[in-house]
């Protein structure tokens, strides 16, 4: 059994976070961030994640073990709070956690007991997040940080998948510019060199891409 890891939302991320307010929901992690999850302790908002234990509890819950299920939901709660809090500043986290737990309950039969639990619960939580952004139709704070995703114990592949899902909905040139600047950390000038365009065209492509992402997730365009 893997040892429990303890991590906190927003804690160590603060040092190098590039924080922007835009209308889009973006769960973004640089492709170059092949680092271990940063672990730190904050006694007030500490959450733990233990995928192996959760998987065992979920398996038992699928067989009708109410005690294991209660334990699972209780231990998922702080993780979900952190998950949403890390992505949406000022959002109604309680509602989101409630909706996710209800969705988990209703869709628990779609969990494959032989598969890892984290990707499944992360996908359910992500859907609730997207639904929230669609319904909220207001400014959503987006943090572009190297630790987002990793801090949730999700691993780079899942974080990249979140990004890929969003970027796949954009024209290729816009997606590439956003990817290079927002994910890989290149400046607009460097991106311009890489895509053989001038800097203004790159800035316009990124601006339009971000606006389109916002429209795709249901927010208003400026």
């Amino acid at each position: 059994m893997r040892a429990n890891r303890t991590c906190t939302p927003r804690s160590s991320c603060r040092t190098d976070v590039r924080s922007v307010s835009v209308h889009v929901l973006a769960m973004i992690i640089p492709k170059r961030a092949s680092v271990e999850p940063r672990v730190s302790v904050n006694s007030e908002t500490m959450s733990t994640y233990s995928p192996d234990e959760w998987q065992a509890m979920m398996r038992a819950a699928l067989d009708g073990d109410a005690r294991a299920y209660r334990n699972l939901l209780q231990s998922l709660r702080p993780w979900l709070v952190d998950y949403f809090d890390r992505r949406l500043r000022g959002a109604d986290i309680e509602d989101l956690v409630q909706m996710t737990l209800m969705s988990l309950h209703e869709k628990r039969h779609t969990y494959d007991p032989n598969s890892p639990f984290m990707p499944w619960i992360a996908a359910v939580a992500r859907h609730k997040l997207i639904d929230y952004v669609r319904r909220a139709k207001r400014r959503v704070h987006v943090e572009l940080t190297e630790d987002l995703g990793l801090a949730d114990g999700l691993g780079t592949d899942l974080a990249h998948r979140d990004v890929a899902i969003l970027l796949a909905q954009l024209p290729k040139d816009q997606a590439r510019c956003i990817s290079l600047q927002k994910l890989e950390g290149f400046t607009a000038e460097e991106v311009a060199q890489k895509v053989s365009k001038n800097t203004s065209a790159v800035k316009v492509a990124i601006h339009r891409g971000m606006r389109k992402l916002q429209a795709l997730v249901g927010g208003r365009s400026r």
Partner: protein
Amino acid sequence: MNSHLDDLIDRLADDLKPVRLLRASRLWFGAFIGLMTATAFVFFVYSFRPEVIALSKGVLPSHFTPIGKPLLFFTLGVTALSAVSRLNRPESEIKLLQIFPIFGGSGIAIVNMGFQLATKGWNASARQLNENVLSCFATIWVGGSLGMFVLWKYWLRQGATSFPRAMAAMSGLATASLMASAYALHCTMDAPVYIVLVYGVAVTVFTGTVALFGGNLLRLR
């Protein structure tokens, strides 16, 4: 916050019952039954083409199309169905390679049509588009729609896909293609231009329609 969530967790735990897990085997079994039903329908309503009847007696056809045409749509249907079975969980996704047979099969059909048009010209090829077009379209659409209804009732609505539009498109492609493969056992129109412009268009339009209207229905809520 704590009390609301505690109440909710208590309620959900108290409400817990063992669940019947989503199993792809049920989808494949249902698809097999559906294909057999569609084949029986084609046999009793239209009858099989002579080469297929001869094949059942062990006589191979003189050319490949009587087998190749049903096989093409069967391949498309099974590949699409495989995508449907993969996509029905929140964390699932499909890779392009996994649906390559769809592009490969379509590509072969389109290249064949191009070859026919290049050698015979449009006018001669277009004359091969006059027979049974309505019957082909209607069978694929009605059969595909019935298949979609059954698929929705017993599989799609129980799932939780992260890719609702792709899931809808693959579902439409699966049901329409499998119906087309059953109908191809009857149809004697073997010209590549007919396969692409009648079968292909019927399946494509059906797939597009399902993708257009089905995407929202399949969104995980």
